């Protein structure tokens, strides 16, 4: 009886049981996107994974058989451990430095008055409009050996005796990566700062808190989710970065991404390159998902 009454008055009682035809419409609507995703992401990815289990020889090329050879090589040869160790180290240090510099940068940016904020935001985001290659080459021009502009200047001023080592060093890669990644961190922290109620700082002030206490106890804990999500973005982009390590690090200082590239295009050992790429991808997904879960659990209570 009550069911009949419900169908008679659909407006009064929000439909608890949706009609079967209506419920299928969303599925049809997302179909094009799903097809695109499957076609250009999942299928090539599955092919890459499959490729990593194929065999390869200098003269015979790729052989479509299933073997663990590539994976064994990666697992046992310390050369690969060194590559992945370096990738992880560079990504971690880059993330740390961008967080340490980007958080105060975003805070200062947020405190600026309108006109200055616009200008500085443009300065921070502007580099995103320029190709990573161009930006990295800029660093190479400044610090590349004895002919680097900055090195020349510093040497002529007598501040340094020999050119600062930059190219082919991890420090150089980290510095260039920090420069490339900074906008992502600043934007992420800035978005978190935007959500802050400006009266909260006034409230803390009225309760007797000084400026440093307000930053440490009130502002920082509230923007921490922004810092952490920025860190996740920067970490995954740095760990998989190709252009910057390729230009600054070159062949002498390889990371996972440049290693995979070389296997594909120089050695032509596609299966090994695929294994390196898959390992990098899986490692990154595990780290990012794990970090994200930690962040969400930590802040679930506070920011629902």
């Amino acid at each position: 009886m009550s069911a009949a009454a419900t169908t008679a008055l659909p407006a009064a009682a929000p439909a608890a049981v949706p009609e079967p035809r209506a419920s299928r419409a969303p599925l049809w609507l997302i179909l094009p996107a799903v097809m695109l995703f499957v076609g250009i992401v999942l299928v090539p990815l599955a092919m890459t994974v499959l490729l990593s289990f194929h065999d390869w020889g200098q003269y015979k090329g790729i052989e479509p058989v299933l073997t663990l050879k590539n994976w064994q090589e990666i697992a046992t040869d310390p050369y690969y451990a060194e590559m992945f160790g370096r990738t992880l180290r560079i990504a971690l240090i880059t993330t740390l430095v961008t967080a340490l510099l980007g958080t105060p940068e975003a805070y200062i940016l947020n405190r600026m008055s309108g006109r200055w904020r616009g200008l500085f935001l443009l300065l921070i985001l502007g580099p995103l409009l320029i190709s990573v290659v161009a930006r990295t080459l800029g660093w190479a021009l400044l610090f590349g050996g004895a002919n680097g502009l900055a090195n020349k200047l510093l040497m002529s001023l007598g501040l340094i005796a020999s050119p600062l080592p930059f190219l082919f060093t991890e420090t150089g890669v980290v510095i260039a990566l920090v420069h490339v990644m900074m906008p992502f961190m600043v934007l992420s922290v800035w978005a978190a700062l935007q959500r802050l109620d400006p009266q909260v700082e006034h409230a803390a002030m009225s309760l007797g808190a000084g400026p440093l206490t307000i930053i440490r106890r009130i502002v920082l804990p509230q923007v921490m989710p922004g810092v952490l999500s920025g860190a996740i973005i920067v970490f995954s982009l740095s760990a998989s970065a190709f252009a910057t390590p390729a230009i600054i690090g070159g062949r002498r200082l390889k990371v996972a991404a440049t290693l995979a590239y070389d296997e594909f295009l120089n050695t032509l050992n596609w299966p090994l390159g695929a294994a390196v790429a898959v390992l990098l991808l899986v490692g990154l997904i595990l780290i990012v998902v794990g970090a994200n879960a930690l962040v969400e659990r930590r802040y679930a209570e506070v920011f629902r």
Partner: protein
Amino acid sequence: MTTPSRSAAPLLELDRVAKAFGSHVAVEDFNLAVAPGEFISFLGPSGCGKTTTLQMIAGFLAPSRGTIRLEGRDLTSVHPSKRGLGIVFQSYALFPHMNAAENVAFGLEMQRIGKAERTERVRAALAMVGLAAYEDRHPRRMSGGQQQRVALARALVIRPSMLLLDEPLSNLDAKLREEMQIELRQIQRNLGTTTILVTHDQTEALSLSDRIVVMSKGRIEQIGTPQDTYERPASAFVAQFLGKTNDFAARIEGGSPARIVAGGWSAPAPVGLRGPVTISVRPERIGFAETGLPARVAARIFQGNHWLFQCETECGPAIVVRPNDGAGQPGEGETVRLAWRPEDMSLSAGAAA
């Protein structure tokens, strides 16, 4: 327009305080002395300068001119964090990453009060606002009313010399707002904390305050008790802003003694006025009578405990409010006569606008 200070020396004094933002004058010539234990409301429409004044007292804004003294001490160079005032903000401004107890404890931590005493006082403060069971709750998981209470407890736990409330109830629904008003008044009476409330809600100001400061366009229009400001408004603005009022075009008719005449209603005229005048009368002070100003009832609206009549008269439209006391009421379209006692009206020279 200074107010006579009450028994004791004033706790807070504002002396010719003014604030300008560029060429825009937000507050001008603000003089006020607040006695210890008093509950003062700053009442006015948005943009009248009431919040600006509060922010100057709190120290978030520096006055352009004038001085603010707390307990005789000039506050001008005292940082907001050193003023020892308890403030409740319109948005409550709770620390979202701390639970209720941590929010309340923050001010005590800043005062370096020991853990044992801190816990004790936090518990007492939360119990006072009826949130004893919510110590571990985070603000995002509390209702607006609960957040409001935490904010009040946080402001009061530091035993402030004054409590400043910036439209604290404006985000609550009507019923809750009324409950909070009563509770706020009770807590304030019990603690005896001198309080300044900023509000645009006249009912709130009337029901809570010892004195009301009515403001308009950065200036004080009137300072007085709720009854004073309501019944003896110092200006047309105050009369219009506090409650509703009827303005009738009337004239003083000569002869000896002169009489003030509005249609069919008349009374002895005060000395000194001549010609056209405006009579202001509150809707609830007008009654239906045998003689008086003839009026046609254009609309009759039932509002539960009272009736509201919209009438048309030759002297202008009139609103009449009568209690729903069971007596028969005139219906729409009927012609009635309106009358009021001369002491219930206020007079101003010139024709009604």
